């Protein structure tokens, strides 16, 4: 019998073992010693075979199934079908951490021209996909509602299925904007950093503007329904909102999925302190928040999730969770997702757009007029796979993890640093440590939340395999 390579990693309750296809179990030092010394017992081999970590001969069911699972763990290239469009860089707000390096509301030269709009529509027309998702970003995109309507009208006629997300600060919402949002194919996304004091300090700068924001959000809930609204907080870990203040603010508007994001170090946030030492504090805050909502969910009888934790949990439990551009393997550039800036330049990610704005590195991969520069995309994609990275190949979390070349370039100016020293790796080691801590935690409250976040009815014991 042949055993697929097993990586191992110390966790709170023992040693986690994982194979290249993302199969895993918990065991101990004694098993590791037997495995490393080629002294596996019959019981070990029986367990490994039953769990899909071993096979008898190449081509048998165990071997073929493993090959399938390994392949399923890889993010496949899909046609470009999700576009972030930035029709204007102008904004009517001045958030401290704004990563888009906005332009003033009355500035000129920061909007799509008529020619750019025509080129964007022509670019959309050339796409191979039948389904499209458009996310309108900025600046404040509602400052150019005319451009949003033009794109939406075109997409509705061109594609079999079209969905739109309007990312807005909900400061000045005209009747025309409410009309735009009234359609069932259009969703709203906004930023709620916490209760009023936090929102004022970080975003609006005035209590009147904050009051207007929450009033507009309340109106949005009434008009659209909570199901068509999403919101994200940006957390300054040096002065974060209390967990309950944050959760209750979101719950008040019927939003039960909270995607915690640290202040991003690009754009204006780069000017603020963003040393890697902040990562320790961030990991602690995030883990504390997850523990908090587990206890709260059990106490309150309602389910709140932290979006990114749930995403990573689902990536551990199964393959195919590859839609989030910040964590997948390989993380192919300009494949299914791209960003089109106010000047028609195409970027592989919003962070790449910011790096260009601050003059750090040009990661543009084309222009709507000329299309995508495949040669440049291929060059960037050379670093997008973690499967055979000399560090990741030893890591038990590799099948669940990914790469973020843009983040590495942003922070370090290079992509070949030892993985364990990068923000991306250290962040995800902490998240996956937390995932497995909870998977092997033996209490009803944790199991109930894990089940809800995984999308299953109940959390059976078999979800936490142990071999002794």
């Amino acid at each position, binding site marked *: 019998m042949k055993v697929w390579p*097993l990586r191992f990693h110390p966790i709170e309750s023992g040693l986690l073992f994982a194979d*290249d296809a993302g199969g895993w179990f918990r065991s101990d030092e004694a098993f590791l010693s037997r495995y490393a*010394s*080629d002294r596996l017992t019959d019981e070990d081999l029986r367990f490994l075979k039953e769990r899909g970590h071993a096979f008898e001969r*190449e081509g048998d069911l165990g071997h073929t199934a493993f090959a399938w699972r*390994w392949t399923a763990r890889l993010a496949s290239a899909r046609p470009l079908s999700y576009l972030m469009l930035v029709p204007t860089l102008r904004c009517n707000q001045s958030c401290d951490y704004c990563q888009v390096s906005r332009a003033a509301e009355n500035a000129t030269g920061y909007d799509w021209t008529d020619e750019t709009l025509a080129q964007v529509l022509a670019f959309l027309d050339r796409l191979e996909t039948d389904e499209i998702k458009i996310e309108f970003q900025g600046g404040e995109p509602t400052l150019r509602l005319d451009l949003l309507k033009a794109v939406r009208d075109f997409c509705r006629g061109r594609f079999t299925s079209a969905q739109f997300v309007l990312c807005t600060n909900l400061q000045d919402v005209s009747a025309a904007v409410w009309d735009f949002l009234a359609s069932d194919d259009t969703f709203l996304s906004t930023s709620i950093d916490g209760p009023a004091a936090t929102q004022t300090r970080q975003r609006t700068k005035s209590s009147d503007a904050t009051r207007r924001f929450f009033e507009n959000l309340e109106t949005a809930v009434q008009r659209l329904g909570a199901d068509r609204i999403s919101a994200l907080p940006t957390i300054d870990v040096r002065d974060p909102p209390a967990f309950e203040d944050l959760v209750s603010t979101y719950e008040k508007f019927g939003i039960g999925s909270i995607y915690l994001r640290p202040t991003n170090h690009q754009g204006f946030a780069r000017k603020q302190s963003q040393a890697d030492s902040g990562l320790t504090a961030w990991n602690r805050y995030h883990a504390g928040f997850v523990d908090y909502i587990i206890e709260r969910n059990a106490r309150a009888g309602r389910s709140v999730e932290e979006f990114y934790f749930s995403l990573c949990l689902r990536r551990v439990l199964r393959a195919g969770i590859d839609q989030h551009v910040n964590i997948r393997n390989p993380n192919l550039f300009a494949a299914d997702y791209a960003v089109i800036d106010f000047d028609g330049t195409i970027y592989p990610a919003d962070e790449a757009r910011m790096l260009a704005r601050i003059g750090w590195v040009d990661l543009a991969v084309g222009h709507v007029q000329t299309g995508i520069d495949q040669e440049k995309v291929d060059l960037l994609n050379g670093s997008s796979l973690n499967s055979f990275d000399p560090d990741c190949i030893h890591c038990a979390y590799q099948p669940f993890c990914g790469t973020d070349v843009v983040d590495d370039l942003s922070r370090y100016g290079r992509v070949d640093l030892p993985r364990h020293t990068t923000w991306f790796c250290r962040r995800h080691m902490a998240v996956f440590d937390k995932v497995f801590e909870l998977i092997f935690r033996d209490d009803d409250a944790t199991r109930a939340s894990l089940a809800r976040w995984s999308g299953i009815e109940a959390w059976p014991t078999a979800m936490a395999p142990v071999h002794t």
Partner: protein
Amino acid sequence: MTHLLDVAIDIPEAMRGYIDAAITRVGYVQVRWVISRVENRIVVRSTADASESDIRREVLYAVYREKILSETMDMRRALLETVTRR
């Protein structure tokens, strides 16, 4: 005065072929350790806060990982050939 800790780890015979690779790996990960080979032992001098048991564990883990990586490389190559075969 800097605290120095010297730890000598005996490597089992079946794993001695991986000592050099493990030393390279540990030296890359634990940049504040001074690591050397003395016959069939790995010797670590550490000025960091790691305990003797931590050092011993990290070194043995590195040896295990290099052994596993080397001895399963053909399996990984064969898997790639399987899934990329037309």
